[in-house]
Structure formats: structure tokens, C-alpha cells
């Protein structure tokens, strides 16, 4: 297992490097626009544009820019380690802004993930166990609703009902835990719930389907024949096997959300990674885009590795050489 893990980590580094190189290439070789023009004021003559490109480091060839990026990533730049340069829009170091925004995105994801796991898996179990009953129908109705309702609509409705009309929850924005723990928690409720809804619906359906399939297996029949309590049959024997695909999905969903839950963050004015990188892409703000892509790529490979390790625990048939 250790050897397997080390091999995977080495490959992870290679994958991340390839991702950053492709991102660099896309923005350099196929630029959506010239960022220098935005900052050249009303006299964008060649000398002014050249000065701006020099300020941004865009005057060098692609391979030189990429080499400087890699070097700074490893050794750090004037703003610290890792060296990710500065945002063209704000001149704020990308590293500082990432460190500022990442916790907000992570707490949003963590809160939503806890919710969608608990709600989704629970509903899936109940639905599978009570298959064909009204409970099952209601559960799948919820799943259908969760999958169908657009996230931005859910968010706006939630704000309208719980903040504007009922006044029981605060509106948009993020409050730091250090400023006011109670407000921090209250501000988390709506965005986490809204983000969790879609995933809870998926997970409910997935858990239900997998569990139904597993409960039809011979070894489950054997377990029941041996006189095991039904709860033990389902939770220990049935659920464990049916959770493997759920684990896979969970890892990928977390990894992808680390790139930013864009819609939720925008609706709730969350000031996280997602809304930041979308604006950066529109504005050809290359350092921000590369920084976020790098972080998201690292998240994906790490989550993939963790998922694979968890497989080995969940399914004894899986062993890694």
C-alpha cells in the first residue's frame, strides 16, 4: 500500500504540471483578449502597451514565462511561497488572495458535504428499505426536485423566504468566525443547504439504487438466514458494499467544488474561489486563473488518491500492489 501511495503521488505531480502547462498554453497561445489594453488608458500606443506587458511579465516568450512560473512555484516569489504572482486587476498577490478565499470555499463545501451525505444517504437507505411505499415515493420526489431545481433559483427563493419575509436567517455575505461565531454559523446555513440540495438528491438516488442491488445478493440472504438483525444486515453488510460508488462520487464532487461553487458563491455574495476565478477568466487575469487551476488540480488528484485508499478499506477484494 505504501509503495502504491508513493507511486500515485509521483503521478499526481506529473498530472498537475501537465494541467498547468495546458492552462498556460491556452491563455498564452489562444488568448481571449489582450490584458494590457484594459490597463492602457486612452493612449494605448505601443510603448505604453509594452510597458504594461513588462509590468505583467507578458513580454517574455511562453516557455520563459512558464519556466519563471515553475521556479517561483517551487522557490517562492517576492510575495512568499508558493510564488503565484499577482492579480492583474488588483495587484494583490494571488497567494494571499487564495489563502483568504479558500477557507470560505472550504467551509461552504464542508458544511454542504456533511448535509448532503447525511440527508442523501439517509434518504437513500430509507427509500431502499421501504421500497414501493409512500415513503419511497416521497423520497424520490425530493430527489427529483433537488435535481431539477436550479441552484440559483433555490438560492434566491431561500433568501426571499428565510431572510426577507421571515427574517429568521441573515442575508448574503460572509462573516468571519473570529468576528462573530454566531453570525458566522447563521450565514452558513442557507448557502450550505442550497448547495447540498442538488447533491443530496443525487446521493439519495445513488444510495437507494446501489443498496437495492446489494440487498439482492446471495450473501445478504445468507446473513438473514443466519438470523442477524435486519439493522445489522443493512448497515453492516449491505451498506458497506453499496457505498463504494458513493465514495467515488463524493471524492470527485469535493474536488470539483474546491474549484469553486460558482453559482452558490455568487448568489450569496460569498467571496470565495468560484466567483473570483470566473471574473479572472473573463478579464484574462492569467495569474489568478493558473493559481486556481493549480489548486483545483491538486485537490482532484489528492481526493482521487484518498478515495482509492478508502476503497481498499471498504472492499477487502481491493488490494494495491
Amino acid at each position, binding site marked *: 500500500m505504501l509503495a502504491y501511495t508513493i507511486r500515485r503521488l509521483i503521478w499526481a505531480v506529473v498530472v498537475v504540471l501537465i494541467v498547468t502547462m495546458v492552462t498556460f498554453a491556452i491563455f498564452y497561445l489562444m488568448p481571449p483578449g489582450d490584458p494590457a489594453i484594459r490597463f492602457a488608458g486612452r*493612449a494605448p500606443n505601443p510603448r505604453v502597451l509594452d510597458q504594461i506587458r513588462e509590468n505583467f511579465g507578458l513580454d517574455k516568450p511562453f516557455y520563459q514565462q512558464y519556466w519563471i512560473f515553475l521556479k517561483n512555484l517551487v522557490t517562492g516569489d517576492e510575495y512568499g511561497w508558493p510564488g503565484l504572482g499577482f492579480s492583474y486587476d*488588483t*495587484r*494583490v498577490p494571488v497567494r494571499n488572495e487564495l489563502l483568504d478565499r479558500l477557507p470560505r470555499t472550504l467551509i461552504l463545501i464542508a458544511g454542504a458535504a456533511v448535509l448532503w451525505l447525511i440527508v442523501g444517504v439517509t434518504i437513500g437507505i430509507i427509500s431502499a428499505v421501504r421500497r414501493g411505499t409512500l415513503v419511497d415515493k416521497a423520497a424520490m*420526489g425530493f430527489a427529483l*426536485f433537488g435535481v*431539477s431545481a436550479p441552484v440559483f433559483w433555490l438560492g*434566491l427563493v431561500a433568501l426571499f423566504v428565510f431572510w426577507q419575509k421571515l427574517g429568521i436567517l441573515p442575508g448574503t455575505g460572509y462573516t468571519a468566525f473570529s468576528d462573530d461565531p454566531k453570525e458566522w454559523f447563521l450565514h452558513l446555513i442557507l448557502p450550505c443547504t442550497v448547495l447540498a440540495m442538488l447533491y443530496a438528491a443525487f446521493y439519495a438516488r445513488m444510495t437507494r439504487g446501489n443498496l437495492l442491488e446489494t440487498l439482492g445478493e446471495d450473501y445478504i440472504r445468507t446473513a438473514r438466514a443466519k438470523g442477524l438483525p435486519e439493522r445489522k444486515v443493512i448497515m453492516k453488510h449491505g451498506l458497506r458494499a453499496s457505498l463504494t460508488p458513493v465514495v467515488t462520487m463524493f471524492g470527485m464532487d469535493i474536488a470539483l467544488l474546491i474549484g469553486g461553487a460558482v453559482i452558490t458563491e455568487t448568489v450569496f*455574495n460569498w*467571496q470565495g474561489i468560484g466567483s473570483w476565478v470566473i471574473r479572472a477568466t473573463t478579464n484574462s487575469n492569467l495569474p489568478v486563473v493558473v493559481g486556481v487551476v493549480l489548486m483545483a488540480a491538486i485537490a482532484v488528484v489528492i481526493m482521487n488518491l484518498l478515495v482509492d485508499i478508502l476503497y481498499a478499506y471498504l472492499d477487502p477484494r481491493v488490494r494495491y500492489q
Partner: protein
Amino acid sequence: MKRTRLLAILVLALGLAMTAAACGGGEEEGGGGGTGAAAPSGESGFGTATGPANKGGTYRVDVESAFDFTDAFDPTGEYTALGWSFYTLMLRPLMTYKHVAGADGNVPIPDLAAEEPEISDGGKTYTFTLRDGVKYAPPVDREVTSKDVAYAFDRLADPTYGGAGYPLYYQAITGFTDVADGKAKTVAGIETPDDKTIVFHLDKPAGDFLYRLAMPATAPIPEEVAKCAKKAGDYGRYPIANGPYMVEGTDKLDISSCNTIKPVSGYNPEAFLHLVRNPNYDEATENPDARENNPDRFEFNINSNVDDCFNKVKEAIIDDTLCGETPKQTKEYTENEDLKPLLKLYPDDSTFYLSMNLTQPPFDDVHVRRAANFVQDKVGLIRAWGGPVVGDVATHILPPSLVPDSLEGYDPYPSPDHTGDVEAAKKEMAQSKYDTDQDGICDAPECKNVLHIIGDSGRERGMVPVIEDSLGKIGITLNTRLLGDQYSVILDPTKKVPFGGGPGWGKDYPDAFTFFFYLFDGRVIPKEKGGVTYNEPLVGIDDATAKSLGIDLPAGGVPSVNSDIDNCVGTADDTQRLECWGELDKKLMEDVVPWVPYIWRNNSTIIAPSVSRWEFDQSTGNQAWTRVAVDQSKQQK
């Protein structure tokens, strides 16, 4: 089974219905339909400044998505109207404005200068005396001197600090370009004989020089702090105020060395800008025509959710907005009598236009350009913007506040209700070489599939069918390309784009020079490849430049207005200069015809019931922060 299927269908239908409800409603920017309300014309719009100037409280403003500063809030290079509007609270250049709406708001008045300057040497020398007692915010604490003003210009001339958009205005100062060229460290044409006196020597007269001295880049900067900013934009993280307000946390700056200077806490470029009173500001030094300084504090907070902006302002959870209204909000506030007074509309001195490249067929023929002006349905374009509330039909280049009274009502290409006059257009087109049978329809191959570049915002998408339909009536068919970053293409003369649908232009200061010089002077066209220009029509391009850029000129060349611009800008008398610009506007519209102008835009702002006093600042095209006030008893949390 049947019941299950029925239930599933019902739930699916419910979900689809909710999705349709969520996606509908004309939420997109500029999404057609208009409001049906008659547009107010003139300066007052729906709202005028009213109410008591209550002192105290916090004025809370939500800003949509981002500040979008161009030089990270460093006044030397910052080139956004929003940034300039914030600077009216923080910085005191030699000159300023009254920060009111209308023509009165476009007149420069002394600010840091104790009085109007002494102008001598045929308009080439300006001598100012500084007011006593104007001090920097802590921790700098000292009085502003003439050397601080001179330092601001040295910084402006040095391209390192991002003053890219400004330098052309100040190249008239003797020795300014020597700093830009690296031949000098300071601008030789600026003298500071003592701490209270500053003298500007110009190479040639500039009748609008006082306007140029009202721009925030010329406000004094303390060198002992700014020298630590090594790159463009760095100083924006800790700008030192000499005005009535400062960035919160400025007083906590440690300026004992460059290494100890850190960004001030009251400004996070991605989240907020908070301003508080400058404790060193002395109201006795203020020009009473310039500022009222009512609130104790300003909070400008970024909000990525536009709907949330307007929900909050309606509930007075915030007081004002810098969020773009959608047609939904505009309709609500124009049709509800209770809400109407909270919608403020003022012309923001900008013109939006369709641009025609004078070097590219079929627009290299003046008859085609005139025909395009006759045929264009301008009301249709304004409808795509959101209706008549958004602005007035533009009939010539300069917005009304920048032209003399003699141009009031001037419309060289009239049409019924500004919807286009096809017959007049055909009559003009029939004189064109591209109408081979002179029937008023452009039938040469050059009129087919003409490349048209426009942005991809909701508004611009709505404009495309109106433009295509109008030009189609005179036989011009367009190959329209929607681009997110249209400016990278249409500003590059080597791209040879014949037709641009998206551009707009606003004044830098209330003189037509800021329009005509950048938009129609042939000297701003880059002489070599790699540069861009806002003179998209390429008015005044000379043979050598065209050859260098690989552009073929039409027979007879392209008309130039360079000498007209020089003549007008050198006119010292304000009234005569205004008349001069008015004549140039006419010449461009009738003889050169580079544009089809279609809208003079309104700035629209929705405010909360908690605002007790509100004013529009004509000089910046934004709220007059220096005059707003709140009624704290009406503010909600």
C-alpha cells in the same frame, strides 16, 4: 405502478415549471421590452437633489461584482470614473468641481489652489498659490506643499507608475516627455519657488488646462510614502489623503521605512473600501462650493448578487447602489409612484455609437456612411438597451453638455421618431460607387457579408437584429461576430474591422478635447504594428502610417481634423472654444461621418429611503459622494 408514474410526472412538471419561472422574467441586462415610460429629457431626470444635509452616520453602498480599477486605486494611473468619484472624498488637486448635476457641475473651481491661477505669457504660464492649512491624513500629518504637487507630475510622467491613460494631457507641460523618455527625473516645466507657489510652463497654450488640473492624478502625493511603491498600482494599497476623508486604517500605517508599510486595513480590493474622516482635515480650508462632507463614514462593499443589491436598498439595509439595474428594477421604479423618487437619472456625458472604418469598403465611401446614419433605427437600439429611461437619442457626436447652445436640436440625419428614414438613406446611397444601378440599394459585392464586431452582453445581443435589419434596407448585409473582448479586435487597426457595434465614450473632463483628440485625431493612430487606438474609423490616418500598418487607403485618402482639434484646444476663451468644438462636431457629422451615434446614456441609480440628501456629480458621472447624507433613523441593519 400507475400512481408512481403519475406522481413522477407531476413532480417533473412542477420542477420544469419552477425552472421556467426562474429562467424567465427578462433578467438579462438590456433584455428588450423597455419600460413603456416616457424618458425624461434634460438634466433632472426623475430625481433631483433634495433633502436635509444631515451630518453623521455611515453611507453604505453595494458595488456590483468588482471595483474594476485599472491601476489598483493608485491615483497616478487610476482611470475609472468610479475611482475618480472616490477620490473626490480623499484627494484635493489644485482644481475641482462643484460636484453637482448639470452644466454647473462641469465648471472647474479652485480646491487646493487658494484661487484661480494667474495666467500669463499668452496662456503658456499658470501660477498657483496653495491654500494654507491643507494637511495630509495621519501618519504623514504635515501640510501639503507645492513640491508634493510637482512630485505627483513627476510620477505621472514616469511610465513605471501606470499613468498610461493620462500623459497625453500633460505633454503640453515643458519637459514632461523628457521624464517619460528617461532623459530627466523631474518635469522641468514645473517650478516650485516656495512651499506655497507652483508654476506650470506650457510649450503651447491649452485652453482647457484648468480641467486637466482637476484630474485626481495631479493631486499632491507625499514622496516619503509613495517612493516605497516600486511598481504601478502598489501605492493604491495605502494612498494618503489630503481631503476630508481617508481610507480607514491609514492612521495605523507604519511609514518609518518602506519595509514596514503594509496595505491599509480599510481597503480590500476584492471586497470593500471603507472611508472615514481625515482627522487633519480643516473645514476652514474647504471651498464651500465643492463639498459638504456629511456622513462620518462611507462603506463601499462588493456584492456579487445584483438582485441582493436592490433587495437591500429597498429595505434600507444599504443606502445606495453601484449595481446595474436590470429592466425589472427600472420598470418597477418608473411605474410605482412611491418608488419613483428613489430612481435618479442623469445624463452621464457619454455617447454610444456604431463605428465605421473609413479605410474599409463599403464605408470608405462617405455616401454609404451618410446612408447608414439616415437608415439606422436608433429607437430600436435604445429599446435593446432597456428603453427610453436608459438615455436619449444621440443625433451628433458630443453629448449635450459639451456643446454650445447653437447645437441644441441639431440632427443632420433626421428620421420619423428616430426610427430611420429609408427613402433619405436610399437617396444618399444612390450617389455611392457601391450602388451600381443607383436604385438606393448597395449591390456591389463589398456590401455583402461585411464583418461586424460587437460585444456579447445581453444588451449588445439585442442590438444585433436592429442593426442588421436597418442596414439591410439599403443592401448592406453583415457578418456579425459577438466577442467578449471586442476591444482587442476593433482597436487594432491592422485587423481592418469595417464596422463596430459596441463602442461608447465618456468624457475625461468637461471639454470636448477628451472626445475629439482620442477618437478622431490621426496622430493617436499607432505608427507601427502592435499598438491600438480608439480612433477606430482611422480618421486622419496618413499615407506613411497606413503603409506601415498594411492598410490600403481609398482614392483621395482619408479626411483629417487634426488642425481643427489644434485650433480649438488652443483657444483660451471658454465660449469661443465651445463654439469651435461645436463646429467640429458638425464637420465630423456632415463631412467626415465616422459614426452613427445613437444614445446619450443616462446614469441611473436607485437609492434607499434612508438617504436624506442625494446629488449627481456631473464631473465624474457618478453619485456626488461629497454631498450625500443619510437619515440614520431610517437605516436598517
